[in-house]
């Protein structure tokens, strides 16, 4: 009875805070859209040439919906296909980065020799912005793997560096505790170092995901096979001068980025709860 009551009360509180959050979000977004509309309208009142590049929000939303239902104007593919194509590149590039950077970060931070081997290479490539590779990768690896490789590079370093940082931040007394409990090196690695790196890994994952989406827009600057929102964004602006479409693409990219980071945050929360580190 009382347990039920607590659950209800907690849910009520949760729902209330959620409702507050939701209303705040709706208010801020509405205000933004209204300001945007007013701005576009003023530009037309004053007949500034800038007006050609600032469509009305309603036009953007119309073209957004239409591009999902039919196709992105002039591009022969629906926005759904474009979004999925970009999503696929981000997911593959990011996953590859995660799969390589996580173990590599663990090894580099744990074994001095591996660090000595890897460090010069990493320090050499780390300062190069991932988008600087676009011309090389797009020509070398062509339509699919080119953008994937750029996303890979974008996500790779934040994950690697955060994991390395996490390993170095492993609590020494936990390692001592494990040793006195009979742990060998491998046990310490799997049972102490890896779990205590998890929060840092998640930080790297979230940062890496954000960068991945930035990279995909740049990586799809040149044409890509199977379309892509980034490409649609470039073509609609640079070739068609259809800025309503450009803005629609920006919204789609933004939404996908929010979706993936939100997913990562969920995973993080789950992980923390599972690890008892709320």
């Amino acid at each position: 009875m009382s347990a039920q009551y607590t659950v209800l009360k907690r849910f009520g509180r949760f729902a209330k805070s959620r409702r507050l959050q939701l209303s705040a979000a709706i208010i801020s977004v509405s205000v933004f859209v209204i300001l945007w509309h007013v701005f576009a309208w003023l530009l037309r009142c004053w007949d500034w040439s800038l007006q050609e590049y600032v469509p009305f929000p309603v036009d953007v939303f119309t073209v957004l919906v239409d591009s999902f239902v039919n196709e992105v104007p002039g591009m022969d593919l629906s926005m759904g296909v474009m979004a999925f194509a970009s999503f696929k590149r981000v997911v593959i590039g990011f996953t590859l980065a995660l799969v390589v950077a996580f173990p590599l970060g663990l090894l580099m931070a744990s074994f001095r020799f591996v660090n000595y081997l890897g460090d010069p290479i990493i320090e050499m490539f780390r300062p190069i912005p991932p988008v600087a590779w676009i011309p090389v990768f797009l020509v070398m690896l062509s339509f699919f793997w080119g953008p994937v490789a750029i996303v890979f590079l974008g996500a790779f370093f934040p994950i690697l560096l955060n994991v390395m940082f996490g390993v170095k931040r492993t609590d020494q007394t936990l390692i001592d505790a494990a040793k006195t409990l009979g742990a060998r090196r491998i046990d310490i690695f799997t049972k102490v170092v890896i779990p205590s790196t998890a929060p840092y890994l998640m930080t790297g994952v979230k940062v890496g995901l954000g960068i991945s989406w930035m990279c995909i827009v740049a990586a799809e600057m040149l044409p890509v096979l199977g379309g892509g929102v980034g490409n649609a964004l470039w073509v609609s602006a640079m070739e068609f001068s259809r800025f309503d479409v450009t803005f629609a693409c920006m919204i789609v990219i933004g939404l996908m980025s929010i979706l993936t980071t939100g997913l990562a945050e969920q995973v993080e929360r789950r992980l923390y709860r599972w690890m008892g580190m709320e």
Partner: protein
Amino acid sequence: MDGNGVMISFINLSKTFSDDRHIVKAIDGFSLDIRQGEIVCLLGPSGCGKTTVLRIIAGLESKSGGSVKVRDESVSSAGSDRGLVFQEFSLFPWRTVRKNIEFGLEIKMMPVEERHEVSSKLIELVGLAGFENAHPEKLSGGMKQRVGIARALANDPAVLLMDEPFGSLDAQTRNLMQRELLRIWSATGKTILFVTHSVDEAVFLADRIVVMTARPGSVKEIISISIPRPRDRTSSEFISVRGEVLSVLEMEFEKTLARELSGD
């Protein structure tokens, strides 16, 4: 319970720490025998090397000279025959109470059911029933240290090394935990080497109190306590022993203080 076999023996132990700039002689000429089933408390001024002694037996630190033997075997590395309990608990935050206790058993690859049995017994012993699946974060300090003790006991070590285990607890909890420790000790018969700053705690727990000199640490004086347990802190015997220990300690404290003031 008071076996006469020697469990831990230090002969002329010394330890020097050195890094690029400093050389610190932490321990010099430390000799001591600890008998099986005995509770020995190490007392001494701050920085005299108590923790270092403990870490050397635990195998977490190497010695610079002399010898340390546990059951007649030289200590070379950390091992599950010596359990260590930390002042800062050092529990694995991502593991539940039960999982923390089972850590050493997992490493020994003990089958799950057996592991469960051992941990259940220990949970019972340290009085944590009902908290098996809680994460350390949810526990109070006293409860955390119960987990720390149970975790060290899970490996059934020959000796239990405790470094100011109750140092961060409030006075009430501290007294309770001291009684609990004695209960666990009488139930398990472990040899316990217990580092503390509290004379009161040492007198309450110890069979013998080893007072160390200021750095470099060595044995200054050993005081045997024959007051029968449970000890009454207000008894005249208790108070007189405490006075005796305090007066020995004070001299060493003064030395430390003088050194600190002289800026060494």
